[in-house]
């Protein structure tokens, strides 16, 4: 959202700067410019006419099905962006209890060795997201050799992590382990 907002703001501000410079040039009559020529110079005439005609068609109900779809999509996109903008930001740290937190990095460092205890797992990639409610959202990607039983590795690693987290007391509200076949030459551990 921040990147999208920055792009919109950059375009808006660039437009305002251009408009401002053009207005100053016309106000002080620098060169042979007249202020009344500004809309024509900015080529707003065609835009006005097109917009006028389009709004007239909308008002009279003379709109094609494609226009209805596009307008609805724009309204829906606006609603989604508004909701995303109003949503409070995700917290940086994982809440355990009232007033106690644990950093995402500490949770990652707890989960990763536990997953790698599985003999089939060559490498693990752990992503931890803090949530507004207590508990972390943990996504684990375990790299295994081609031909290994991914399902059993997934379920064993998942239960191992769950048990370890229950022992340490770190609250995990959502845990998902995914085993992916990888080339052992590209993983940190080749042989176990």
């Amino acid at each position, binding site marked *: 959202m921040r990147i999208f907002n920055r792009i919109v703001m950059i375009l808006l501000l660039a437009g305002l700067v251009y408009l401002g410079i053009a207005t100053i040039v016309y106000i002080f009559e620098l060169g042979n410019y007249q202020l009344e020529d500004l809309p024509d110079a900015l080529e707003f005439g065609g835009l006005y006419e097109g917009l006028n005609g389009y709004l007239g068609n909308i008002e009279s109900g003379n709109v094609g099905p494609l226009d209805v779809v596009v307008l609805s999509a724009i309204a829906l996109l606006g609603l989604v962006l508004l909701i995303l903008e109003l949503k409070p930001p995700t917290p940086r740290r994982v809440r355990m*209890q009232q*007033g106690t937190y644990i950093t995402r990095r500490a949770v990652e*460092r707890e989960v990763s060795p536990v997953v790698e205890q599985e003999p089939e797992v060559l490498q693990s990639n752990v992503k931890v997201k803090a949530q507004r409610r207590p508990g972390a959202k943990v996504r684990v990607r375990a790299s295994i050799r081609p031909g290994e039983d991914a399902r059993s590795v997934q379920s064993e690693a998942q239960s191992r992590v769950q048990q370890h987290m229950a022992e340490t007391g770190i609250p995990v509200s959502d845990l998902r382990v995914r085993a992916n076949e990888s080339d052992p030459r590209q993983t940190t551990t080749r042989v176990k």
Partner: protein
Amino acid sequence: MRLARTVSEAALATEGVYSLGTGRYVEAATYGAGEKVTGVVVGPDEVRIHIVVRYPLPEPIPALAERVRERAASRVGGRATTVVVEDLEVVPDENL
């Protein structure tokens, strides 16, 4: 500064706390004239304590963090107390 030092001593005296954390992106510290207390951030309404937990754990991490919070809360004079577990440090068992 005195409050930060008191809180720091209380946290370090808690069993299971290995050290005080330093923060990751921004240094977690309270600054005074010519000195600083790392791991404790004293604000006008809040005191935040960053701890590194000793492994193996004497008790579950939330219970340990809560114990640190309780110990510090009695010394901060009505400020809200927050404990952040920043890392875990594996310490070899002395009995082995």
